[in-house]
């Protein structure tokens, strides 16, 4: 562990031998294609299937009314507070909503026939933002008892105390900061191959699932099919980023069709379907207020958010956390008091609010506080690094109880930011910036020193649909000393086949090359809640270490038996068991494994295996210090990210190369969010970003060069001290980019522009400032 071992899964992927959902076919398999609504809000007057059914090869056309006959027209959303339509019944609530499903003998016939399903709509006025929604002039959800678009109010902290502290502050800033609606847009879209075997009565689902066990339970609860009759296989996944956590209508329609028809049914969504109907992220409109003394000591933080949840409350958050872990909004700073509240609203937009490479709204919170601190530094005329250093939670304050209810596990924020400032040459950059400003050139330096809350989570607080958010590992050591390791998680590119093997290898003294890692098959893997929200290493990684330690305990007894010593006299040293103080009298784990099957200890079971379900005592709190350096062309609005340094502290590092890969990928996504990406809707409710010509994914040509480094403050409560890192770069980088651009534009008096910072927006801001 701690070595940059090459990823075991990569030879398979780089040779094109990965097996993704779309690679699977079954004899007699048919295809499903969906009919989508062109209207964002409309009553369905009539659905005429006649022309579609007349197409040779079409087997069936399903509508919401057909599903209602099987009690499948609506399904519960993940946290159980709302339900969502599978196929529209009565009316459509967002553009591209699924209205019908066509089952046909080929993908092409299904798609062509879907065009022939004639749906007559009666258009209704749409609601396209939370501020319009909260007026309740148009009520969107006829099905709900409460005739309001308001979904819920959530708050945490001390309102009166915070208001009083803000009122008493020498300096305050207040800004509406919008984290735009964006989309995880994994390169592999979502899909399913559903196979109900009439002979066995067993439903097998090959599914693009980040959480196969949770999906199996949901399928069982919704359909009434016993869980032992449901087998979910999540094969290789081409990126998830939270998009493959929810249950989508295409899954339900395909599975229902397979159950009814008794034949395999496959559905793989198009890019447009992925961008327009599956789980979006963010769409938080945050009013951020910070108070401070005139010498720059923060006094209070208040954030009030309007959240656009779309047509259904389908945000994939733990049950008790409707706004996810947004309470991390105090960030890395020691606020004496804080308060945050959030109101969520329905709109005529696609449902979602998934944790896009983010631990349940941590990205929104980090962006709010990091932009807020930058605005405060500007107002105080103080260097933003100095403001941060002045207000960081100090190393000796850990474990640190935050004013909004978290207990941060560990950190040394001062050390990490100082390292970043030194590495990037901060003082020299500021001198260069001053010289450039003299010449009228726009150069900016942006800092983001974020703290995340990840690793959901402790069972006393965290569940999804009642299922506690533990995770699991099962390890079987074979007689010859190789092993199979199964976990309740599911890699979508994170490299679990390598890093899980490295954890077990470190704990057991085995060769990681000889530890096969298997995930994603509910028939074989132990029950777990899956991979998202940076929870795999904090939870399943801990389970792997603990299962390994259970094996090691048993192995110690076998070693004592073989060494003819008392168990208490046998110790684990240098990856071997030895009689205490006698390194020459030692046995390897391979030797013990063989004995476990050939010469077991008299008082123990044969074999060498263990399962562990890990219930974390707390979340983990990775953090980082990121610095972006940009040049802005005021004539064109073009922003050149000249340098970007990311220093991450994720505690103990299992594989530095894998971590670096995660950082590179996440920074690239953060760059895209900051400069390119938005799922925008016009006033008529049209989704304007329905494909990769309108929703941009950066290529290597646009992507800046990333500089990375790390510090290490291990988590004190995690078995190996690891904290999780996969989401840090996506969480922390948008604020660094935006802060850098705003710093560049500060001579023009520009203080805030909402993302994405497109050339047009930057150019308009420059032009407006110049002409004003």
């Amino acid at each position, binding site marked *: 562990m701690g070595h940059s071992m090459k990823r075991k899964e990569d030879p398979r992927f780089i040779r094109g031998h990965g097996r993704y959902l779309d690679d699977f076919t079954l004899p007699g398999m048919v295809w499903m294609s969906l009919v989508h609504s*062109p209207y964002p809000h409309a009553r369905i007057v009539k659905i005429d299937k006649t022309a579609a059914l007349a197409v040779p090869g079409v087997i069936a056309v399903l509508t919401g009314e057909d599903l209602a006959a099987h009690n499948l027209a609506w399904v519960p959303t993940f946290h159980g507070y709302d339900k969502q339509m599978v196929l529209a019944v009565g009316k459509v609530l967002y553009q591209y909503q699924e209205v019908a499903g066509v089952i046909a003998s080929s993908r092409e016939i299904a798609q062509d026939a879907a065009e022939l399903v004639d749906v007559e709509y009666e258009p209704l006025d749409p609601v396209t933002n939370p501020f319009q929604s909260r007026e309740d002039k148009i009520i969107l959800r006829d099905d709900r008892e409460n005739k309001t678009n308001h979904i819920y109010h959530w708050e945490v902290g001390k309102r009166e105390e915070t208001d009083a502290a803000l009122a008493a502050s020498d300096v305050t800033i207040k800004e509406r900061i919008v984290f735009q609606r964006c989309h995880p847009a994994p390169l592999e879209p979502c899909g399913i191959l559903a196979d109900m075997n009439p002979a066995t009565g067993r439903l097998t689902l090959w599914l693009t699932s980040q959480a196969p066990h949770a999906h199996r339970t949901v399928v069982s609860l919704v359909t009434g099919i016993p869980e032992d009759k449901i087998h979910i296989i999540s094969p290789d996944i081409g990126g998830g980023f939270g998009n493959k956590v929810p249950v989508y209508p295409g899954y339900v329609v395909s599975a229902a069709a397979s159950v009814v028809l008794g034949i395999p049914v496959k559905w793989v969504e198009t890019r447009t379907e992925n961008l327009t109907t599956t789980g979006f992220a963010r769409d938080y409109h945050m009013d951020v207020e910070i108070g401070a003394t005139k010498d720059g000591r923060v006094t209070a933080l208040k954030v009030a958010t309007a959240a656009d949840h779309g047509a259904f409350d389908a945000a994939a958050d733990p049950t008790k956390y409707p706004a996810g872990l947004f309470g991390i909004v105090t960030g890395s700073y020691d606020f004496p008091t804080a308060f945050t509240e959030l109101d969520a609203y329905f709109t005529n937009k696609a449902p979602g609010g998934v944790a896009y490479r983010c631990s349940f709204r941590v990205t929104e919170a980090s962006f709010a506080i990091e932009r807020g601190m930058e605005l405060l530094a500007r107002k105080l005329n103080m260097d933003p690094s100095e403001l941060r250093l002045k207000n960081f939670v100090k190393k000796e304050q850990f474990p640190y109880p935050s004013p909004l209810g978290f207990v941060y596990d560990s950190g040394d924020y001062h050390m990490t930011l100082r390292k970043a400032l030194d590495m990037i040459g901060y003082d020299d950059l500021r001198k260069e910036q001053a010289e450039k400003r003299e010449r009228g050139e726009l150069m900016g330096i942006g800092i983001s020193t974020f703290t995340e809350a990840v690793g959901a989570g402790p069972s006393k607080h965290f569940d999804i649909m009642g299922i506690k958010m533990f995770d699991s590992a099962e390890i079987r050591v074979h007689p010859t000393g190789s092993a199979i390791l199964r976990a309740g998680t599911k890699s979508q590119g994170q490299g679990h086949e390598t890093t899980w093997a490295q954890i077990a290898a470190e704990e057991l003294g085995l060769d990681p090359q000889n530890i096969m890692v298997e995930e994603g098959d509910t028939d074989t893997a132990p029950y777990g809640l899956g991979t998202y929200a940076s929870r795999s290493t904090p939870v399943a990684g801990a389970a792997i270490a603990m299962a390994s330690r259970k094996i090691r305990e048993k192995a110690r007894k076998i070693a004592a038996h073989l060494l003819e010593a008392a168990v208490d006299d046998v110790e684990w040293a240098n990856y071997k068991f030895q009689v205490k103080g006698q390194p020459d009298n030692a046995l390897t784990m391979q030797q013990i494994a063989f004995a476990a099957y050939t010469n077991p200890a008299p008082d123990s079971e044969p074999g060498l295996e263990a399962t562990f379900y890990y219930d974390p005592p707390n979340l983990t709190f990775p953090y980082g210090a990121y610095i972006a350096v940009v040049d802005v062309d005021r004539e064109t609005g073009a922003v050149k990210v000249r340098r970007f340094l990311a220093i991450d502290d994720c505690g103990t590092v299992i594989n530095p190369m894998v971590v670096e890969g995660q950082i590179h990928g996440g920074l690239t996504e953060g760059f895209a969010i900051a400069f390119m990406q938005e799922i925008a809707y016009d006033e*008529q409710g049209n989704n304007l970003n329905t*494909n990769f010509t*309108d929703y941009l994914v950066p290529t290597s040509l646009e992507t800046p060069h990333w500089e990375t480094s790390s510090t290490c403050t291990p988590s004190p409560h995690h078995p190996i001290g690891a904290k999780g890192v996969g989401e840090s770069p996506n969480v922390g980088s948008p604020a660094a980019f935006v802060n850098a651009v705003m710093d560049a534009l500060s001579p023009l008096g520009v203080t805030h522009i909402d993302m994405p910072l497109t050339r047009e927006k930057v150019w308009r801001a420059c032009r407006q400032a110049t002409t004003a």
Partner: protein
Amino acid sequence: MNLEYSGTENIPASKDAVWSFITDPANIAACMPDVLESTVVDPRTFDAVVQVAVGPVRGKFKFHVVLDPQPGGDRLNMKIGGGGFGSVVDLTAGADIRSESDGSTTLDWKGSASMRGPVATVGGRVIDAQAKRVISTTFANVKARLSPAAAAKPA
């Protein structure tokens, strides 16, 4: 996405001739560009299959066109609804028709279009160019069909 257009066209033909021409669904269908098929449903209505190519949105759209001549013969309203490939286009238009002293006829027209679905994502400028092409081609065809030279040709 909503788009609005208006303009004035002068046609070198009498008001009666123009009125008679533009209130006939078959004539309108014949003058619209890119029409692959058209079916006159009744004296005021026709269906058309139109080849559409707006940016990446390409394919056959089906439209239902209703002509609504106003009493007095001075104004014609028109509604076009339809779409394809998940897109919906609704267009309403109206033209005030008057005789000129030189015997020609002037149409003061105004139309607004509402677009939903993929076609709405293409971008206003691309759609704008296409819409202007459709309008100008249609009027050019109307003029050509009603010009004295055309009228002189044997049927």
